[in-house]
């Protein structure tokens, strides 16, 4: 029988994390010892009836109290600063991240690679490669918890959250759900396989193993879906009267009917697919069908992957996407008051929602 004391240290952050962790542990031990020695010493020395000197006993000492005020504050602030720096760095995306999509559902983890490989409760990643998980939940709140990487973040329904880590050691590590999500919460577990780059490439080549075999990449799935749902009927190569083109729309600033601007990120694209009337690009009517009940989170992610594949505002050279001002019904919102625009789209949204629920 052995007594493990540390989880494996398998990411860049784990090393920085453990340095802080053991520093606080040292502080804890020191302070516990100080208080322990004080208690033990006083209790023994001043046991009732002992002959210890009890004269000139003080019952308060302002200088000492100020010391007690200052020392913990300073130590606390030092630890705070250290941990805040650590945390900010771990929440900051690295350059050249490999993006994986994660969908949490009761009670399993669904992981999807860009090339279309799908895994359940398993995740294969190459060593030394910064990873970004883009996560969303289909039902309740879950938490992606990777103890070996000292990484954890909640997976919330309704919006995307992200988790960043860089695995440093090949091996197999636990992948857990960190927040109570119902009956089989404790079975929502799996493994992260950190492979060497060569093994990972082979694994990719083979299209994954067993049930994870991929025939099409996410973009291809998205493209098929695009065709199947007839998105291209309206969203054509260039902007037309019915709809804007989505080529290279990702990560660009969009102007809405009410004059506000919005960054076309994953959250916005998801919202526009599921409930298009919510925020409409300036110059367009609310005519798009809502897909709130007809697309799964996976399908939405594939569509977004497809839209991303057509270019992105953040990619150098492709960032000059400009939202055109079209004749007639321009972005000039002064002709119509914002509330009138809100009126238009809201009533359209209402009638669509009615269809949706019928």
């Amino acid at each position, binding site marked *: *029988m*052995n*007594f*493990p*004391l*540390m*989880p494996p240290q398998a990411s860049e952050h784990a090393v920085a*994390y453990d340095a802080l*962790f053991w520093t*606080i542990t040292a*502080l*804890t031990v020191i*302070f*516990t010892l100080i*208080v*322990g020695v*004080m*208690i033990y010493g*006083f*209790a023994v020395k*001043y046991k*009732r*009836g*002992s002959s210890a*000197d*009890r*004269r000139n*006993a003080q*019952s308060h*000492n302002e200088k*000492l*109290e100020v010391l007690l*005020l200052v020392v*913990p504050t300073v130590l*606390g*602030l030092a*630890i*705070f600063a250290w*941990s*805040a720096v650590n945390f900010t760095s771990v929440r900051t995306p690295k350059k050249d991240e490999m993006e994986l999509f994660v969908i949490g559902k009761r009670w399993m983890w669904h992981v999807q690679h860009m090339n279309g490989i799908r895994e359940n409760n398993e995740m294969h990643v190459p060593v030394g490669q910064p990873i970004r998980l883009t996560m969303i939940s289909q*039902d*309740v*709140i879950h*938490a992606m*918890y990777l103890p070996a990487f*000292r990484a*954890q973040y*909640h997976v*919330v*329904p*309704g*919006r995307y959250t992200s988790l960043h880590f860089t695995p440093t050691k090949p091996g197999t590590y*636990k992948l857990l759900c*960190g927040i*109570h999500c*119902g*009956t*089989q*919460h*404790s079975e929502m577990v799996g493994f992260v396989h950190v492979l060497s780059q060569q093994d990972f490439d082979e694994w990719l080549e083979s299209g994954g193993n067993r049930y994870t075999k991929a025939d099409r990449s996410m973009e291809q799935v998205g493209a098929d879906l695009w065709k199947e749902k007839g998105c291209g009927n309206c969203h054509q190569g260039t902007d037309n009267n019915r709809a804007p083109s989505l080529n290279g729309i990702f990560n660009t600033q969009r102007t809405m009917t009410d004059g506000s601007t919005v960054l076309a990120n994953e959250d916005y694209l998801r919202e526009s697919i599921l409930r298009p009337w919510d925020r409409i690009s300036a110059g367009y009517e609310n005519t798009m069908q809502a897909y709130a009940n007809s697309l799964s989170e996976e399908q939405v992610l594939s569509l977004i992957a497809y839209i991303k594949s057509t270019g992105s505002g953040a990619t150098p050279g492709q960032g000059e996407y400009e939202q055109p001002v079209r004749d007639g019904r321009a972005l000039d919102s002064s002709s119509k008051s914002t509330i009138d625009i809100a009126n238009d789209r809201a009533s359209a949204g209402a009638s669509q929602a009615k269809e949706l629920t019928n």
Partner: protein
Amino acid sequence: MSATVVDKTQEEGLHEPHPKKNYLTADHTIKSWLLTVDHKRIAVLYLISTTFFFFLGSIAAAFIRAELTNPMGTLLTSETYNKMFSAHGIIMVFFFLVAVIPGVLGNFLLPIMVGARDLAFPRLNLLSWYVFMAGGTCFVIALMMGGVDAGWTFYTPLSSLYSNTPITLALVGVFFAGFASIFTGLNFIATVHKMRAPGMTWFRMPLFVWGQYATGVIMILGTPVIAITLLMVAIERMFKIGIFSPELGGDPVLFQHLFWFYSHPAVYIMLLPGMAVISELMACFSRRPVFGYKFVAFSSIGIAALSFLVWGHHMFVSSQSVLQGIVFSLISFLVAVPSAIKVFNWALTMWKGSVHFTTPMIYALGFLGLFVVGGLTGLYLAAIDTDVHLTGTYFVVAHFHYVMVGGTIMAFLGGLHFWWPKMFGRMYSEFWGKLSAIIVFVGFNFTFFPQFILGYLGMPRRYHYYYFAPEWQVYHVLSSAGSTVLGIGFLMPAFYLTASLINGKRAGRNPWGAKGLEWEHADSPPVTLNFDKPVVVTGPVYDYDAEKDSEMIRAGQRLVDMVKGEEEK
């Protein structure tokens, strides 16, 4: 506390051949108990009901520990297991910890300590107990209907849309319990402000009163927030209105904000009264005034105020904004400072004192040890980075058990043993008392220390199985074994304290030689209106003399004789 003796006859009352009527013997009918407005009787009612809930919650805990000895968890189904930990959490937090010290010791002692005949609003106090029982009944009915499985935190949308258990009823139960706590807090605040005896200035109040006052402030400022939040969840369950559910248009993180806005201060509703008890115990059994009285008193108020500004540290990884997480982390470190001040001042109270190792003192020393560990492990969870890995694991479980059990329950048991002779007029067996205190301390550490390691290794809380990590079993077995010892330690007082009611030695007015209005001016047990004559306070609080005390003991006097000498004087 030295105070002018207004009337000597009350001293003589002790030695009358026929003891005069006290609050217990004033009337014997059941009706006189159920319709009583005497704060002392209500305290006894609270003692009985919270003890019941404690054992109910402990049974659930026993099932959890038994289940976790095996990675495959063969005893219960996952569904039952989830209901067990939910029941354990909800009962222990809302029906035991929040109510126990204010309800039992606070109700009994606060008016006596400030020299009042009763709390400011006695009927509201009775109502508080009834509302508490109504809430408890709702929850017990929810248990009988199968129990709830959303954990005590009731995170949406699991609790509002997905769970198929009688959560609405449980929420209503907690809602009622919240009102019981509001009424208690209201009573304490009005009593401390307006009912103090002549001469009882703020800085002559025992620190117990300061602690209860700070608790009362949190109760009226925080509890309504959780009450209305849980009500919103209940309405959301019934009508599907969608304030907290994303698929209905709401934001689940908003629930966590509102929940922790109360539930972090609630930690201090549970802990501050415990700290208040410890101040009394340390002073009495060191025969010294509490070191740095004013700093300890103001640290209670400081904790109460700061506790409202740190709720976000429960939500570092909940997708709240990074900026807010960092700000909350900063403030969380500040709230550690008043706690540190208290711990050092308690330890310094023994300095040049005359330390008596009685049962309550052993509990108090146990409290100090456990609270130091509990408090310091809070640093890991306040630091935003270390929290990421540890949040939602057994590290958190161990941390808050060190604070809640090691803090609140140790303090409650210490206080109960200290004031037991005052409450019921009987002494318990000192041998069994000390034994149980030591068993609780040892059992507690065996139960919860391994859980720190488990948490660091990555064992998430609320997990029924851990078949994927058999290497964790050794710590779980240790923990379960420790919990057996702990359970025995908790059961023992139930027996010997009950036995003391029947065959315990009669306690005099002041068996510990303690200072304070309740020891010097009230009988054991006190009469219905606490004092025979109004008291006027003239001296400082904690007017102990350690040197004299030690000299007398060196001269061969035993505590009992000293006390008798004091009384006959």
